[in-house]
């Protein structure tokens, strides 16, 4: 029987970017800028995601002429057709195929105007107090206690309409709350950055209704309305460094196939902000031979490596419809701070392209699993990495062409977290009424009881590329704090070894967050950008 989506059509939604451009915003495609041009601004921001977007609006409102550079294309509401093919090609780093060096970890990261905020699943959490305390203790981060950060989170919660999702969870998320409730496992409703959300389920392919309060529909328009500019399809190749100053950025223009079109130009500004994330940011500094006396650039990059557990139900789950993430459990997250890895449990939306990757493998079994998609649930566990000496995170290196390589083997410490997380998820799924459960590991069969799952999971191997390690959270690589043995960015977001370079994004986090990181990025960006505005204007 042919089924149809419960909401058959999305129409009548205006496109704020197209309207803004028609009204005269200063927005340019890099290929339209003459080769060899020099462009000037008060501040140049490299990257337009959670960090760059937030910073741009705050600096623009302070009266500064801000120029935003974005490597990815400019896509907006009218382009968002809920089509995985177009989304992965146009909105994700490396066509959604970004991976770690040994292929083990798949990294979903945005590459478009608005960055990952355009394609994330909207989950918004304060930085946990345990994490903030750990940063103060271990990295000498100053001014970032729970009390000191709270007002910044509040401001961004208001700016981006963040509040707990008031609608009942979709069946995929209800598996988590129902199973957790049955077991006495603590669970809560996820706060989301949405306004007037249609509960469609397509946050990952670009919100088709403008409900998601991504940078694309909030702070970037906010900055552009204040005489700031945006150049997209513009890859920051190198920082131009002279002594202790950054003079500007060398930029390569990219064509419609995301390849250099042969043109390059430079942007000069007295203040340079890097907001290009924990992978591309360190790579930009490495390409630029930025001063780094302790060799810390690109070290301690964290990803919340994700373990996945599928389950099958008699009833329909339709895991592709409805708000992708609305329930979480931190029950296993803070049993300790710096011992064996803790993890956060959430649900994973499953559209067929993504599902076909996460099911792992090939042939008859893969085909059969795909055929059961409507009755399939998928839970995930975000492993909290970076809080233990056996969890040093990834190193960012450069390939021959200067693009980043992410070196992050799954060691015994992480694998121990994976096994415990897979068991926790299986317990919850069976308690919620699942008929069978299978972790995303090539050797795992569909387990038909919780006992079978526990025993089977303990016997699985940590063999690279035999199980799915996901990540949608790129953090660290340019740690902040006053401990110069460990950190390259100070407690105000300034690069320790350059006078006018600021790093305002998730790359400054000295560990992973232990929660979906977007609100952590917004909060720290709001704090740093306000401090920077005051400093530039001489009021601080």
């Amino acid at each position, binding site marked *: 029987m042919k089924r149809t989506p419960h909401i058959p059509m999305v129409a009548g939604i205006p496109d704020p970017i197209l309207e803004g451009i028609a009204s005269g915003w200063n927005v340019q495609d890099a290929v339209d800028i003459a080769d060899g041009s020099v462009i000037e601004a008060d501040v140049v921001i490299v990257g337009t995601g959670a960090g760059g977007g937030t910073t741009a609006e705050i600096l623009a409102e302070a009266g500064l002429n801000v120029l935003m550079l974005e490597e990815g294309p400019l896509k907006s509401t009218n382009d968002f*057709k809920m089509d995985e093919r177009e989304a992965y090609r146009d909105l994700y780093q490396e066509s959604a195929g970004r*991976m770690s060096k040994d292929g083990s970890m798949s990294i979903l990261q945005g590459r478009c105007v608005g960055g990952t905020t355009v394609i994330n699943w909207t989950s918004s959490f304060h930085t946990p107090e345990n994490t903030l305390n750990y940063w103060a203790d271990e990295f000498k981060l100053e001014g970032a206690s729970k009390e000191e950060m709270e007002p910044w989170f509040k401001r961004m919660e208001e700016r981006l309409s963040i509040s707990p999702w008031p609608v009942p969870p979709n069946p995929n998320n209800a598996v988590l709350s129902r199973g957790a409730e049955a077991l006495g496992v603590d669970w809560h409703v996820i706060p989301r950055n949405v306004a007037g959300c249609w509960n469609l389920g397509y946050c990952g392919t670009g919100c088709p209704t403008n409900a998601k309060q991504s940078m694309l529909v909030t702070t970037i328009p906010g900055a552009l309305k204040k005489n700031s500019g945006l150049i997209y399809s513009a890859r920051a190749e190198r920082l131009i460094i002279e002594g202790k100053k950054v003079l500007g950025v060398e930029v390569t223009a990219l064509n419609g196939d995301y390849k250099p079109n042969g043109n390059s130009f430079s942007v000069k500004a007295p203040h340079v902000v890097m907001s290009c994330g924990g992978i591309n940011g360190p790579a930009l500094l490495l390409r630029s031979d930025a001063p780094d006396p302790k060799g810390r650039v690109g070290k301690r990059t964290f990803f919340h490596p994700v373990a996945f557990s599928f389950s099958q139900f008699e009833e329909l789950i339709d895991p592709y419809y409805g708000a992708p993430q609305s329930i979480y459990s931190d029950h296993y997250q803070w049993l300790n701070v710096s011992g064996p890895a803790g993890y956060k449990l959430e649900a994973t939306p499953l*559209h067929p*392209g993504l599902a*076909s990757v996460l099911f792992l493998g*090939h042939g008859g079994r893969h*085909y059969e699993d795909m055929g059961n998609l*409507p009755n399939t649930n998928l839970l995930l566990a975000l492993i909290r990495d970076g809080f233990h000496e056996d969890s040093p995170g990834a190193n960012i290196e450069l390939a021959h062409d200067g693009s980043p390589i992410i070196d992050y083997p799954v060691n015994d410490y992480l694998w121990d977290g994976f096994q415990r997380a897979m068991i926790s998820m299986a317990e919850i799924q069976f308690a919620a009424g699942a008929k069978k459960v299978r972790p995303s590991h090539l050797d795992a069969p569909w387990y038909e009881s919780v006992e079978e799952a526990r025993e089977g999971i303990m016997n699985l191997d940590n063999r690279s*590329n035999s199980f799915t390690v996901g990540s949608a959270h790129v953090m660290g690589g340019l740690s902040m704090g006053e401990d110069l043995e460990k950190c390259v960015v100070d407690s105000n977001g300034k690069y320790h070894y350059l006078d006018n370079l600021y790093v305002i994004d998730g790359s400054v986090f000295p560990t992973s967050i232990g929660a979906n990181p977007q609100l952590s990025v917004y909060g720290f960006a709001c704090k740093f950008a306000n401090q920077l505005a005051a400093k530039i204007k001489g009021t601080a």
Partner: protein
Amino acid sequence: MKTSRRGFLQLGAMGTAALTLGSGAAMLTGCAKQQTPAEGFKTLREVDVYFLGALAPAILTTKGYPGALGKDARQRLLEALDTTMTTLQGHALKQLQMAFDLMGSPVTRVAVGAPLHPWQEATVEEAEEFLVSWRESMLPIKRMGYAGLCKLVSICWYSQPENFEISGYPGPPKKIPFPYPAAGE
């Protein structure tokens, strides 16, 4: 070692693989292979078309292309793979093509455990045997190749709207873009 990297696109590391496998074959035959796209494609070359075309039926079901696309299935998949590969940036694409080059010569094919005869003559059983040997390999690089190939082919296949019915996905809502007048009107 800076040649090995990422991706379902990370198959390029197989350029390294051929060497690790103890054969100088990759060096001897060189990578001076044809770089021009095959007829009708922007990026896929003949060697890529034969290799991916031979593996895809084994990856998708072991019996062929599932779904209603019938005789158009192979072409549609190759077009989707071509689109994905076309948007890859320099290094990733070059690495992937180097890996596929290994599949174009008998010497390098055998060195990486593929059939001696060209991929366009391979049976689905041979493709299956090749996939399983890579999946079960002790060499991390072959397992990476296996995972990468399966992911690349699967995501390109199952994200095609004609194939939604295989997974029982009813599809997304229809999006009608807001009707702005075209520039100049």
